[in-house]
């Protein structure tokens, strides 16, 4: 382990006050010995920097997929007091409400025999992907205002899904507090043509098979069976979210002196939650988050149509298990020193993992905790877990969000060729479809920590509990 960090549990580490000047609380992160070798000093410094922010409560936290980002580390979680605390775009990231949803189908792997290539090609044709991709949807600026307020409901009311889908989204697919006036005309110009597009980078739609059920009772509650074919959608708020983040980062950075906030990293630019700048960011961020839920809803609809046509399925046979956000700031009630208090929880590359009986989770899942969807990297397993009471106590109800990178894009491109990765994965029975082999190389499995180990750590710690393992069969990428 890096110098200056104290071990406080089997898988738990503390960054003491003083690691960087001005820390108000200690940092805490969760990591196994085998993952410790991948920890960058830059990530720990970023975790410590977050601890200098005004009104931070208890700890600056990071999940086992912690890695070096900008502002907050990726995997970072922090809660802020509603009066003394701040809100920061650096604790959310540019891709506001980047998230994941998982959908089951009544098909088994054998139903896909001989048809997998065609399925992947049809999905690739139906869903716009990659740099410069534009939607086939035609929406007006007025429609966009409604998307930003109503989120996934806007899509469902236009036939892109069913009422039941909404209950199975975090925040029912729309956070309250959207302020379309806090979204610039530039953000709107980017948002109008991109609704229903997957984007590029690590975003994907993957067809998967449930390969192992580890908690049969909870899997049944979530509607999963061994051998079942599922699909998973990973994407966010596209150019609209990137522009909202950029615009407000700029405003908050300029307002730092007004609020006498001193930070070690300007990317942590923030303002008091109840200040004009803080409220402006929150209202704009909610608009982008709601756009992202509508975006994933439209993409899921297009994929459902492809499955329905190819395999003669009824639309309703493809059930949304859940949709989770992993880049967002939210006002939530948590227990602090035995009292329930409202705090502003930032999760940047971390998933909400609320346990059983949390009022925010769907009634049908109240007995087991919310579904937590952890995508693997391309070619590695993804996992379905459930939220726990331990997460509520230790991490503001949060857990990891994915595998976490270990190799930069430039390094991995020097080490592997996209064509080789594609052929190797095809040899393992995983079909990859993208616009270019370079995009495949960047996301090669060797660029990521093993998802198995990251998930094992959160499971052993009790931050969430493994329900099922899903293996990839084919993936479309940006």
């Amino acid at each position, binding site marked *: 382990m890096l110098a200056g960090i104290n071990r406080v549990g089997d898988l738990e580490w503390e960054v003491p006050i003083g690691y960087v000047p001005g820390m108000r609380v200690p940092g805490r992160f969760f990591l196994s010995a085998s993952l410790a070798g991948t920890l*960058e000093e830059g*990530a720990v410094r970023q975790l410590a920097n977050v601890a200098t922010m005004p009104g931070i409560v208890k700890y600056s936290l990071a999940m086992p997929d912690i*890695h*070096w*980002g*900008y*502002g907050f580390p*990726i995997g970072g979680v922090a809660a802020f007091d509603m009066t003394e605390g701040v809100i920061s775009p650096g604790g959310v*990231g*540019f*891709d506001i409400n980047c998230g994941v949803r998982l959908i089951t189908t009544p098909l088994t792997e054998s139903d896909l025999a001989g048809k997998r290539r065609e399925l992947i090609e049809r999905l690739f044709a139906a869903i716009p992907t*990659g*740099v*410069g991709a534009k939607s086939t949807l035609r929406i007006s600026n007025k429609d966009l205002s409604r998307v930003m307020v109503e989120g996934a409901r806007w899509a469902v009311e236009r036939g892109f899904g069913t009422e039941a889908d909404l209950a199975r989204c975090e925040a029912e697919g729309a956070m309250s507090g959207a302020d379309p006036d806090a979204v610039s005309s*530039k953000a709107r*110009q*980017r948002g109008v*043509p991109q609704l229903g597009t997957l*984007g*590029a*980078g690590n975003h994907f739609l993957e067809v998967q098979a449930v390969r192992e059920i580890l908690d049969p009772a909870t899997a049944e509650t979530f509607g999963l069976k061994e051998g079942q074919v599922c699909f998973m959608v990973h994407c966010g708020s596209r*150019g609209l979210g*990137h*522009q909202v*983040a*950029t615009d407000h*980062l*700029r405003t908050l*950075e*300029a307002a730092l002196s007004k609020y006498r906030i001193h930070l070690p*990293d*300007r*990317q942590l*630019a923030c303002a008091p939650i109840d200040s004009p700048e803080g409220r402006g960011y929150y209202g704009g961020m909610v608009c982008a988050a709601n756009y992202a839920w509508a975006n994933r809803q439209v993409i899921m609809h297009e994929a459902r149509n492809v499955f329905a046509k190819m395999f003669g399925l009824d639309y309703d046979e493809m059930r949304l298990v859940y949709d989770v956000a992993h880049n967002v700031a939210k006002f939530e009630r948590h227990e602090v020193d035995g009292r329930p208090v409202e705090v502003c929880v930032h999760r940047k590359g971390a998933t909400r993992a609320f346990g059983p009986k949390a009022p925010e989770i769907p009634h049908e899942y109240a007995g087991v905790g919310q579904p937590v969807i952890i995508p693997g990297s391309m070619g590695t397993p993804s996992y379905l877990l459930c939220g726990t009471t331990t997460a509520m106590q230790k991490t503001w109800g949060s857990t990891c969000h994915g595998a976490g*990178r*270990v*190799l*930069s*894009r*430039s*390094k991995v491109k020097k080490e592997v060729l996209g064509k080789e990765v594609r052929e190797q994965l095809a040899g393992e029975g995983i079909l990859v479809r993208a*616009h*270019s082999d*370079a*995009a495949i190389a*960047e996301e090669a499995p060797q660029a990521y920590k093993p998802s198995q180990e990251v998930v094992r750590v959160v499971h052993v710690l009790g931050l969430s509990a493994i329900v099922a393992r899903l293996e990839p069969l084919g993936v479309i990428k*940006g």
Partner: protein
Amino acid sequence: MSFEELEHTADLRLRVRGATLDEIFAEAGRAIFQVMYGCCKDRGVERRIEVEAESLDSLLFDYLSELLFITDVENVVFCTFDVNIQGTRLTAVLRGEPLDPARHSGGTLIKGVSYSGLEIRRDEEGYVVEIILDV
């Protein structure tokens, strides 16, 4: 005038050098388009922009963010950047071509420009800056 990619696990970190401020801004623009689209030719697309900020670092942030905005909404790829800086005000003439998915989809989408470590410095060779971009 040059740029190089530095090690950064999750995002993209570039070091950009230039003999003058005009050069370093032009090179930073060229760098992000190279990363996003690879090849680009001047095929007659021309665009003029003006940006003003309260400091040079913020001017760079605003200028690069403006380039990301323009390419996203106008579907254009730029290859030459004629930049003129007066104080903390910039005018630039950008030249390039329309986005062609067949030729321009081999790159990495940039989501935003980070303020982390964004500080234009002077050294014996001229100006240098490191930029972390969210990809």
